[in-house]
């Protein structure tokens, strides 16, 4: 039984805007799925459909093998949701808010009270537990939102942009928490910050313009990438760096080389073996009398992988419709 399964999920708002188009995804229990896509790709719509906040125009969503609907309260008791930049009732305090959320999940007092105390302690809001929510910072509100999403001890966590608006310290806290929580839960993480997804997730779902363009492991996502793109960070005189670039571009195994300040981006010719041409490039650089600071493969970056997926999907244009029909 899948944790989340959607079939041919389509959402059209007021017959004007197609937010999601025939999305079929399947998330296995225990998976940590990164939901990626540019703005307007349909990520939040997909999340809202998974939670039963919206009704699909066509297709269906199943959570733990049962169809999700707006009235499927029992099913939502197994899901913890963190919305983007949670806006919470301003007149409440963290304690009253978590108590309220506990009641919404139907938790009796003897379960609710100890759990909310533990949650407040876990998200480090003990000092602010008596403060009104209107006086809490974005980071504190996000931490409280995280606590609220865990009040029902959910089997499935759906977090929409959890690191949105957080300072580096709070972001690190959230990422570490996600890693910890994902050990025994299914986690769907929607984020614009690809580094976060890269760090936490083992699976990825990529949406673009309401369509599913990739579903698989993070390894598969990166594996689709250009493996022959490298970037060298150099140090030395500008003239020497330019000489190095010119010499590198003359190599038979190099398709192109471009310099941008102390960095040289190179594209090798298609070859199964990358090590030999790369060694040749490094030798040429050394001969030009410049130092090598760092080298990294652009193809192994999630961001690059994601962008290439989106670009190639957009380039396909009309053929997408044909593919969808054939499928």
């Amino acid at each position: 039984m899948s944790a989340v399964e959607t079939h041919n999920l389509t959402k059209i708002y007021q017959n004007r805007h197609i937010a999601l188009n025939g999305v079929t995804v399947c998330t296995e229990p225990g998976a940590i799925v990164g939901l990626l896509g540019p703005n307007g790709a349909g990520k939040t719509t997909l999340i809202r459909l998974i939670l039963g906040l919206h009704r699909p125009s066509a297709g269906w969503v199943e959570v733990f093998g049962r169809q999700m609907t707006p009235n499927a309260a029992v099913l939502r008791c197994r899901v913890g949701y963190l919305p983007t930049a949670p806006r919470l009732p301003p007149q409440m305090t963290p304690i009253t808010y978590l108590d309220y959320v506990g009641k919404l999940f139907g938790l009796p007092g003897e379960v609710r009270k100890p759990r909310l105390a533990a949650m407040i302690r876990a998200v480090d809001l003990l000092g602010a537990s008596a403060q009104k929510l209107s006086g809490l910072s974005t980071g504190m509100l996000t931490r409280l939102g995280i606590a609220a999403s865990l009040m029902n001890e959910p089997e499935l966590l759906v977090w929409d942009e959890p690191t949105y608006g957080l300072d580096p310290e709070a972001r690190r806290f959230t990422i570490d928490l996600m890693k910890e929580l994902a050990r025994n839960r299914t986690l769907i993480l929607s984020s614009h910050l690809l580094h976060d997804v890269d760090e936490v997730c083992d699976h990825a779902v990529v949406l673009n313009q309401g369509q599913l363009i990739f579903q698989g492991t993070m390894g598969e996502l990166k594996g689709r990438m250009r493996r022959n793109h490298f970037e060298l960070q150099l140090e030395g005189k500008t003239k020497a760096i330019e000489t190095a670039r010119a010499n590198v571009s003359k190599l038979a195994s190099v398709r192109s080389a471009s310099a941008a300040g102390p960095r040289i981006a190179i594209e090798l010719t298609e070859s199964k073996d990358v090590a030999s041409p790369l060694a040749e490039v490094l030798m040429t650089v050394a001969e030009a009398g410049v130092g090598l600071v760092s080298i990294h493969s652009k193809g192994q970056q999630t961001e690059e992988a994601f962008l290439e997926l989106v670009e190639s999907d957009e380039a396909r244009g009309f053929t997408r419709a044909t593919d969808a029909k054939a499928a």
Partner: protein
Amino acid sequence: MWNQTRLVGLREQLMRRLRRWFLPYSAVFANDLAVLAQSWVLRAWLVLTALFALVTLLDHSSPPSTAGHPGGTIVAALLHPVDTTPGPAHTIAQLLKFYVVVWVSFVVVLTGGTISSELGVVADSVLSRGISRWQYFLGKWTSRLVAVLGVYLLVMVPTTLVIWLGSGVDQVTTETHSEGDITTVAVVQAPNQFVIARAIRPVGLVIGLARVAALLALVATCGVAFSASFGSTVISIGVGWVSIYGTGLILSVLDFAYFSPARLVQELPSVISGTYVATPQAWLIGGWVGLTLAIATLSGIVMARRDV
């Protein structure tokens, strides 16, 4: 023995399920009431109704025949510039008339944003939890009903009691009408003259209060229904005002005055003084309560099917 154990188990299971259902509902209900208690609209309405009741009480305690006369008070002239029979039934009817004609607009404002103001982000953090749309809707609807009827009763019950107990009835006569209903007429002693004024009958008073309460419940339910149907609070309040006053006007203009607020206002003094036929009164109140429940059910269905 086994049956008894099974019965106990079933009862416990049932209780657990009931508690499980009741908790989310009561959470929304209590939270909404707490928010309403801090709302300036509700506070303003309570203060204004209480102030109006106080002014009416003061006017009632002043010489009754002075209104419309050269020496009459301004307050008396404003409240009943034409009608010069200000008995206790009439005074209460005046108060109730204000609820039907003026205070309903506050009720529309108070209920028009019940759900629409929460749609989107705040609703996300409620409706994404273990609560069904029906529980949410019922919690919101009942809390608004309690708030509206609570303010109404909080002001009207003590006011009517004061008017009733202090009406100074000296002599009561009873007349039998052709329909068989009873009118109680009291001779009220004013400081300098006697006037014929309608006295209050307890059952009539309860019926009068219940009629206005049923109308307020209907208006409150319409407000919640509009807020569940429209995405904007401004639109739901606007539609609420137009439909409440528009429907009242249409019912009054057309030959379908049975349910019209105008007729309700006209009949109030007679009803409060006991001049009524019980069965149509019961049908009228029952009809409004039924309509209220029907509108609530329909809007619950709309709410359960809409995107939030």
